[in-house]
């Protein structure tokens, strides 16, 4: 499983969420993370149909999107989502 994260330097929610993901990833070291910058990687933004709200985190398995998390979520919510996915 890998996660593709879209964020922007100016986005406060992205800063908040990156800190929370840092904690989550400590307990999920097998998750591969690919980061894209919303302003720099326009090709990927279009490819993954990133909408108006940042950050966007897309879970991908075998090149197929499993789910995506949009906007801010608490640490508890993040852990619950991962738990639901059996991670």
């Amino acid at each position, binding site marked *: 499983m890998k996660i593709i994260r879209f964020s922007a330097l*100016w986005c406060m*929610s992205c800063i908040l969420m*990156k800190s929370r993901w840092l904690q989550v990833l400590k307990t999920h070291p097998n998750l591969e993370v690919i980061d894209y910058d919303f302003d720099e990687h326009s090709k990927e933004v279009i490819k993954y149909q990133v909408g108006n709200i940042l950050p966007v985190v897309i879970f991908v398995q075998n090149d197929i999107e499993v789910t995506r998390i949009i906007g801010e979520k608490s640490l508890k919510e993040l852990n619950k989502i991962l738990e639901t996915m059996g991670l």
Partner: protein
Amino acid sequence: MIYLDYSATTPVNRRVLDYFCTVSEQCYGNANSTHQMGKIAKEKIDLASKAILKMFDTDNHEVIYTSGASEANNLAIKGVAFRKQHLGKHIITSVFEHPSVTTCMGYLQNQGYDIEFAPTNNMGVVDVEALRNMIRSDTILVSIAGVNSEIGIIQPINEIGLMMKMFPFATFHSDLTQAVGKIPITITNIDLVTFSAHKFYGLKGIGALLRKTTTILEPQIHGGKSTTESRSGTPAVSLICSMEKALDLAVCRLDSQYRIVFGLKKLLLAKLALIPNVVVNSNDACLPHIVNLSVLSKDAHTMVDILDRQGIMVSMQTACYTGSQRSESVYRLTNNEQRAQTSFRISISYLTTLLEIDALIDVIEMAA
């Protein structure tokens, strides 16, 4: 035309402009040159710096001239972060900062810095006790703006500065861009202070970072000593002098201008209170110069366009919502999506007239 966007920028004061022209004509030397014209320019800058520091009532800060507040914020934040990275990478800021601060934080986070946001109360004011409890042995910087640019929330920077004295290893930076020339400021306990001349009837293209002499920064522009080791480049003598003039005029008239603006805001709020569908997002903890409001029946972009078509200029802010008009600051303050999507900023000045307020109210009444 009715201009109600004074927090974005102000019209230049005629005396400031005249002084800029005089200095430009008379002191065209490069202050870094060792010849007579260079010395005259250097002396002019030194006098301006002394006057600026006197106005801030400090003798232990240096004035670093920049192109404006965004550059000054970048120099302050990255300058401290890079200089002190061997001591730690923990930085605390607030959710009500200008994008030039928030974006620096995003950039530093990508460089491995640990960025945290200080908790605020329901008025958007930083909880100083909670902030104190967040400071760790690896905290290198706390950056809290004196006044939020979108809603006008005033932060207790004196209290924060006093508290920060308990943590001499951490630098305290405050972006005072929306505060300077509008409210009295004490910077004794602030290590780094940012401001920009065009917010107080000065010219665009000049700002400053006041650096406490004990605070060392990693320069962001390299290229020689210039007037300071922290920022290279040929000093803009006439812009520097014009900023000193603008600051002098703003500080001298601060009380009287504040009273005018306070009265205008009171009147504006009273009139807005009578209009259905209008909610004021600014609160009692806010600067009188800024009134952030929502016309709930119209998204912010539509409302700003309606006002613009009637010759009334206000502004809106966007962040994080890449294609819509959601205000991050209003959302953080109110936790209300509708208010965040419909909010816009009216910023008034001592130049604002009662007729202008009436015209604004008429248009809002029609649109609401």
